[in-house]
C-alpha cells in the first residue's frame, strides 16, 4: 500500500516542503530509501526500523520503499525520521487511512522510540503554513519555537507512540493548548549597560550616533581604552526588535542550532564577536552545505570585529559585498542560497602593533611598521566605516570616582526618535537608515544651505577630503540632525561629522 506524508527540509534558512512517500509491498524483505539523500537521511532506515520495534509495533517482513520528493533536491538532517516512521505505519495499515493529510511531520527518532528535537523548526513551520497545511507535528522540545508562527497548529510529541496516538484521532490539533497562536512578547534584557561606562565622552557620543543611523563604527585606540566595552553595549541602545525582526533572527539561530532551549523567541539584538582567526566562510557563511556565517547571525544587531587588522585579508574582503547588499549570496552546484545580513559593523583596532602610536614616548614602531599595520585593512573596507573615533585610555579618577554614565535606556529613547524620523523620511524608498543612503537619495535628503555648502567646500579643499569621505560626512551629518530633531542639516552637524572622518587624514599625515 502507498502513502504520502508531508515533511519539511531546510535549505539555507528557508523551509522546503518535502513529500515522504512510503510503499509496502510483497517481495523480498527490504527497506530502501531514495530521493537524493545525504548519509544522515539514509541512516534513518536503521533508526526507524529499530524505534518502530521498540515502540511496540511488530511489523511483518515486507518490501518497504521510501521516496523523498522532489527527488532532485538534496535532503539533509534528521528531521525526516518521524515522517518516515508514520508513513510506513500508515502503509502497513496500522493507522486509519488519510489521518496524516494536511499535516507536516518533523522530528528525529531515537532507538527507544523517543522523538528528539531538530534545528530549524521555525523555518519548517513557516513553510508548512505557506503550503496551506493545517497542523505540524514536532518534537516536544521544539513546540514553543514552532508555535511562534501564527495561523497553524503546532503539536509537540515526546515519543513515537504518542505521535501515533495523536494522529489516530481525526482533527486532533483542534483545541489543543499548542494550537493557540500568539504568545506574550518577551522584553529584551542585556547583561551590560552604558551606565557602567565612565568618562569616555567621545566614544559614547560616537556610539550613540552610530546606533541612531546604523552607521558602521571604527574604534581606534591603545589596548585597554574601552573599545570592546563600548562595542558590547551597542545593542543595548538600539531600539528593541519588532516581532517580524525577532522572527527573522530566531529563524537564523534556529537553523544553526544556536537557539537556547528556554527562549523560543529571541528578543535581544544579537551581538556577535568572532575571533580574528575566523575564516571567510565562518564570517559570511559557506561550506559544502551553506550555513549562515557570523554576519548573518548578527542580522539586525551588531557584528563586532575586534583587532580588525589581525583578520585575514580574505575574510575582510568578502565582507564588502554583504555590507553593501545587506544580504549574502552563496552559489553551489545544487543551487543558490541567500542569507540576510543586515547588521551594523563595529570594528576595533590598535593604531600600530604595540598600540601606542602616535605617542612616540611609548610607541617603538617604525613608520614603515605603523603603515604596514594600518595597511592591512583595505581602503574599500575603511570607506564603509562611516564613523571613526579614537579611544583614549581612561583616567584613573574617572574609573574610580567618576559619576555613572547615562544609562542605555535614556540613550535608546533618543535613538528611537531618530529611527522614527528616518522611517518616515525613507518610507517607500527601500532603505531604512541614513547609512544606507547613496547617490540620488543622498542628494535628495542631504541638501545643504548656502552656509553649509560653503563650509563643505572649504573643508573639502583645506582638508583634502576624498569624494567618499565627503559622502560619509553627509550621511553622518544627516543622522546628527535627526538626533536633534532638526529637519535641515546645519553647519554644526557637518562640523561634528567631519570630526569623525578621522582615519582619512591619517594616511596622509604619515607619508
Amino acid at each position: 500500500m502507498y502513502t504520502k506524508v508531508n515533511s519539511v527540509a531546510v535549505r539555507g534558512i528557508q523551509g522546503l516542503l518535502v513529500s515522504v512517500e512510503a510503499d509496502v509491498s510483497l517481495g523480498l524483505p527490504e527497506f530502501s530509501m531514495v530521493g537524493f539523500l545525504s548519509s544522515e537521511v539514509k541512516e534513518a532506515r536503521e533508526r526507524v526500523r529499530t524505534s518502530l520495534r521498540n515502540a511496540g509495533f511488530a511489523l511483518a517482513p515486507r518490501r518497504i520503499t521510501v521516496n523523498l520528493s522532489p527527488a532532485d533536491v538534496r535532503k539533509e538532517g534528521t528531521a525526516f525520521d518521524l515522517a518516515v516512521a508514520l508513513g510506513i505505519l500508515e502503509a502497513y495499515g496500522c493507522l486509519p487511512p488519510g489521518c496524516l493529510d494536511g499535516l507536516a511531520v518533523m522530528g528525529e527518532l531515537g532507538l527507544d522510540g523517543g522523538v528528539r528535537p531538530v534545528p530549524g523548526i521555525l523555518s519548517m513551520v513557516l513553510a508548512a503554513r505557506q503550503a496551506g497545511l493545517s497542523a505540524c507535528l514536532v518534537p516536544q522540545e521544539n513546540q514553543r519555537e514552532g508555535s511562534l508562527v501564527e495561523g497553524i497548529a503546532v503539536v509537540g510529541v515526546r515519543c513515537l507512540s504518542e505521535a501515533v496516538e495523536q494522529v489516530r484521532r481525526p482533527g486532533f490539533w483542534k483545541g489543543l493548548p499548542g494550537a493557540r497562536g500568539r504568545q506574550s512578547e518577551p522584553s529584551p534584557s542585556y547583561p551590560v549597560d552604558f551606565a557602567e561606562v565612565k568618562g569616555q565622552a567621545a566614544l559614547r557620543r560616537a556610539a550613540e550616533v552610530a546606533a541612531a543611523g546604523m552607521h558602521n563604527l571604527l574604534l581606534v585606540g591603545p589596548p585597554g581604552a574601552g573599545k570592546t566595552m563600548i562595542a558590547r553595549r551597542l545593542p543595548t541602545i538600539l531600539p528593541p526588535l519588532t516581532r517580524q525582526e525577532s522572527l527573522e533572527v530566531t529563524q537564523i539561530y534556529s537553523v544553526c542550532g544556536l537557539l537556547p532551549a528556554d527562549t523560543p523567541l529571541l528578543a535581544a539584538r544579537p551581538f556577535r564577536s568572532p575571533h580574528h582567526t575566523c575564516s571567510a566562510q565562518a564570517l559570511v557563511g559557506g561550506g559544502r552545505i551553506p550555513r549562515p556565517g557570523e554576519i548573518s547571525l548578527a542580522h539586525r544587531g551588531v557584528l563586532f570585529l575586534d583587532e580588525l587588522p589581525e583578520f585575514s585579508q580574505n575574510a575582510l574582503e568578502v565582507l564588502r559585498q554583504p555590507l553593501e547588499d545587506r544580504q549574502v549570496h552563496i552559489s553551489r552546484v545544487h543551487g543558490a542560497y541567500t542569507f540576510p545580513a543586515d547588521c551594523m559593523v563595529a570594528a576595533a583596532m590598535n593604531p600600530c602593533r604595540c598600540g601606542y602610536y602616535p605617542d612616540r614616548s611609548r610607541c617603538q614602531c617604525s613608520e614603515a611598521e605603523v603603515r604596514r599595520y594600518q595597511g592591512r585593512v583595505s581602503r574599500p573596507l575603511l570607506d564603509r566605516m562611516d564613523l571613526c573615533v579614537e579611544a583614549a585610555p581612561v583616567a584613573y579618577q574617572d574609573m574610580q570616582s567618576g559619576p555613572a554614565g547615562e544609562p542605555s535606556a535614556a540613550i535608546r529613547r533618543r535613538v528611537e526618535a531618530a529611527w522614527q524620523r528616518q522611517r518616515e523620511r525613507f518610507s517607500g524608498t527601500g532603505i531604512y537608515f541614513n547609512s544606507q543612503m547613496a547617490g540620488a537619495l543622498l542628494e535628495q535628503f542631504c541638501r545643504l544651505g548656502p552656509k553649509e555648502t560653503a563650509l563643505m567646500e572649504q573643508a573639502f579643499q583645506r582638508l583634502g577630503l576624498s569624494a567618499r569621505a565627503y559622502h560619509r560626512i553627509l550621511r553622518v551629518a544627516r543622522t546628527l540632525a535627526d538626533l536633534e530633531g532638526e529637519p535641515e542639516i546645519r553647519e554644526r552637524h557637518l562640523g561634528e561629522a567631519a570630526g569623525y572622518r578621522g582615519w582619512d587624514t591619517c594616511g596622509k599625515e604619515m607619508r
Partner: protein
Amino acid sequence: MTEREMWYWLASLPSWSGKTIGQALDRLGSLEAVWNARELPVTPLQQEEAQRGRREPERLAAELEQLERQGIRFVTRSCPDFPARLRRWKDGPFFLFVKGRLPPEGTAAALVGSRKCTEYGRLQAEELGRFLAGKGVHVISGLALGVDGAAQRGALQASGYSCAVLGTGVDVCYPASHRTLYRELEARGGLVSEYATGSPPLPYHFPLRNRIICGLADVVVVVEAGRKSGSLITADWALEQGKDVLAVPGRMGDPMSQGCNRLIRQGAGIVAEPEDILEALGIRTGKKKKTAPELSAEEQSIWRCLGTEPCGLDWICQESGQPVSAALMILLRLEMRGLVRQVGAGRYLRLPR
C-alpha cells in the same frame, strides 16, 4: 686615460671608501700614480677590485657616457662646479654623483633629526624648512623618514632650494616611500651622493654621508634626536669642521629629545624660535612680533587646552567643558584656519606659528 675616468674608476670600487682613496693618494702622491701603481697600499681584496677595473679602461668611459644619458652628472674636485665648501676640506669627498642642481652660492643650513620622530618633531622640521627656504637659505638634509623628509618637504613648499645627500647611489630612492619627494628634489632641488649608482643603503654609508650633509651647510640644526640618533653624528662632524650646531630643545626627560637636550648642555645653540637659525647664519632679521590668533570665547576655550603634543578628544572636552559635538565643530574651524591639525583618528595639536 683622462683624469675624470680615473676618478670614476675609484668611485666605482665599492670596497674603496673615501678614506682609502685619501690614503692611497697621500702615499703615492697623485691620481696618475695610483692608476699606474702595480702595488697599492690597500688590502688584497681592494687591490683585486682595483685591478679588475683597470683592465677595461674603455668600459669606464662607456659607463660615464651612460650616466650622462641618465641625467646623472659625475663631478670631481677639479670640476669648476664642485661645491666650494667641500673642496677646501681634507676629509671631504673627492667626487659626487649629482641629480638635479648642486647647491648654488648662498647660505645653507642642514636640518637633521630622527627617522622615528614625534608629530611635534615632524611639524617643527617642516615649519623650519619652510621658514628657512622662505628666507632664501638652502636646506640640506638626507631624504630620510621623519625629520629629514619633513624639512625638505617644507623647503620645497616654500619654493626654496633643498639638497638631499644620499647614503645610496644617487639613482636609488631610499626610503622608497619618499618617491614623490625624491622626484620633486630632482626637478626643483638637488640629489647628491658619493656612492656609485645602484649602491644599496648599507648601514656604514650613512654616518659618512652625514659628513657631506654637514659639509654642504654653514650651520647644523638638530630638530629632534633621541639618545642614539644618527643626527648626533652629523653634529659631531659639524664640530670637527668647525661649524655651528643648533638644537631644538625638547621637554625635560622626554626620551625623544634626549639627544637635542644633551647637545644644548654641551654648548650647542638653542633654537627657541626660527629666527635663531638666521642669527647663527649671520642674517639680520627684524624680529616680527607674534600676534595671538583672533579667537572667539568658545574657540579660545579649546585652543587653550591644545599643545604641541597631540591630545585626545576626550581630554579636550573635559578640559574645555565643551560637549563632544561642539568641540568637534570648533576644532574643524581651527583646522581650516590652519591653527590645529588632526593626527591619528582623533587627536589634535597646535600647529607652530
